């Protein structure tokens, strides 16, 4: 998918044909190698939330860890840039929340964890002192600040991990499913915080999630991965308008639909039961505006009493499902065309 808007801001980092294949340690298991990331080329500008989506095993976590330097790539490169757009020689300071694990010392308290990692990170001590307090109270952990992490609830532990990622004000944040296990309030707080960091402080955030709603509300740009490949990458609004169809959803009494139906048979539609009795919900998939007028004429001719009519805008979830479905059928077609086996 091509990007119609030119991004003028400087890049935060650039992935260039980045690939990662995991080979088993045992030599005679090498045929079981897994290519987790394949030829990933991506340019993420500074000051945005970039959300990486994809089904399980798509390679999101691997991409995050490659960015963080926790995994070395098999091929390709990662370049980081400073705020003036100059190439950095080394990886800048990165704050990260990694998937599923708490990534903190369980036997230390949240406060002690913040101090320990702040110290070894080389963050000025006065900053650690100020920020540790601020972060813990921001995440409602002030009264748990001194109890050991293992006695905290799962969601609280996740919040400690997020606080730790924010410590020291890193320019780049990598968040792998950060809201996993968080309650509604905390998830909201984090959304707001992320927008604040990006808009007011110019931070760059890469976030993976399976919660489409989260991605749709915080992300500026969205990348969709599948089988290690980046199969779509664009602004959220572009993705949605690309898939926007002339879909109209009409609800009417069952009897009226029976009369309209023969006339409408030239149009493509799906019908289903409404929540109310004796009512049908019909979704018309129209080609263009003329189709819309034609539909209206049919309805008018039959004098159908409509209960409701609305245009259907696709959600990010619809777009996601559509894109991954298309990719899958394409992959299958190619495989079949090449005489290959379909997995």
């Amino acid at each position, binding site marked *: 998918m091509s990007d119609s808007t030119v991004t003028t801001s400087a890049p935060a980092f650039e992935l260039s044909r980045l690939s990662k294949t995991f080979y088993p340690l045992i030599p005679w298991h090498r045929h079981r190698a897994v290519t987790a990331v394949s030829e990933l080329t991506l340019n993420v500008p500074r000051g945005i939330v970039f959300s990486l989506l994809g089904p399980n095993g798509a390679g999101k976590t691997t991409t995050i860890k490659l960015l963080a*330097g926790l995994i070395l790539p098999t091929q390709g490169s990662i370049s980081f840039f400073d705020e003036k757009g100059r190439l950095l020689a080394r990886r800048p300071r990165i704050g990260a929340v990694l998937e599923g694990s708490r990534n903190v010392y*369980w*036997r230390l308290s949240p406060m002690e964890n913040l101090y320990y990692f702040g110290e*070894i990170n080389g963050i000025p001590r006065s900053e650690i002192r100020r920020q540790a307090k601020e972060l813990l109270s921001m995440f409602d952990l002030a009264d748990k600040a001194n109890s050991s992490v293992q006695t905290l609830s799962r969601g609280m532990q996740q919040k400690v991990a997020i606080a730790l990622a924010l410590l020291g004000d890193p320019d780049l944040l990598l968040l792998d499913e950060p809201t996993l296990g968080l309650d509604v309030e905390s998830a909201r707080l984090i959304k707001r915080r992320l927008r604040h960091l990006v808009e007011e402080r110019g931070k760059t955030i890469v976030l993976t999630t399976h919660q489409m709603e989260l991605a749709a509300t915080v992300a500026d740009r969205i990348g969709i991965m599948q089988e290690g490949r980046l199969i779509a990458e664009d602004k959220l609004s572009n993705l949605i308008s690309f898939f926007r169809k002339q879909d109209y959803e009409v609800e009417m009494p069952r009897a009226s639909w029976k009369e309209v139906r023969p006339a409408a048979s030239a149009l493509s539609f799906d019908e289903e039961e409404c929540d109310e009795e004796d009512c049908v919900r019909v979704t018309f998939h129209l080609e263009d505006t003329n189709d819309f007028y034609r539909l209206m004429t049919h309805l008018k001719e039959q004098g159908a009493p409509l209960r409701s009519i609305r245009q259907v805008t696709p959600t990010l979830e619809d777009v996601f499902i559509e894109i991954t479905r298309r990719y899958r059928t394409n992959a299958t077609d190619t495989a079949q065309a090449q005489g290959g086996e379909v997995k």
Partner: protein
Amino acid sequence: MTQLLRLLQAEFIRTLILRWRYPLELLTGLTVMYLIFLGLFLGARSLVGETTGFELSLSGFIVSYLMWFFAISAISRLTYSIEVESSQGVLEQIFLNYPRYLLLQYVRGFVDFIEGLVFIAALLGLIILTTHRMLTMDWASAGPVALVVILTVVGLQGFGFFFGGLALLFKRIGQVGGVLQFGFFLLAYLPVERMSVVGQQLLYCLPLTQGIRLLKIALVDGRPIFASANLGMLAGLAANSACYILLGSAFFLLCEKKAKIDGRLGQY
């Protein structure tokens, strides 16, 4: 340099907090070490009887025992902490915050050594109370003894890096650690001096043996370590430890790289 001092401080504080919060672990450790010693001591006495021979070798016995403690702690600390930290994801957090992991492990080794000294002081106190045996040591030999202990521990920790590296790759290698502890126990008590020349050469290539030999000269025989007759041995110990720490570190770095290639820093 200041960053190194901050690491050192952070590690000291972390250790103190953990010891304070979980005092039982330390007390259990001390009790177990003491009971093992007691068992050996009483067993040996009932075998040999309270002869002068037994009296003479008791000091050597104690020296070997204390040095054995350094051997186990050097090996088990690194492997155990890597096992635990990688399963909790802390290892990844450490790499995010301080990527020069080997350096951090040197600092931790130092903190561990200091902690070990405190532990040993307590253990020695108990042993002296039980056996009524003081080690012969005057202030003049304190410096040389400290030097030998430090050199020996450096070698042991270097040896530990081999297993730390393997732990980065294979995680659960705790069982190997158990076998090694036993191996070092044998090594600490083997009468190397009475073996064939080839046997001696081989055993002195291992860590621990040379250190114990030098310590016995000072603490059992009461002779000075810095005498010209012993300087060769001292140089040998230094070379031995340097080899272990260099090779161990190099191997550890290789394993670290391999772990990053295979994505094994996390709990995968």
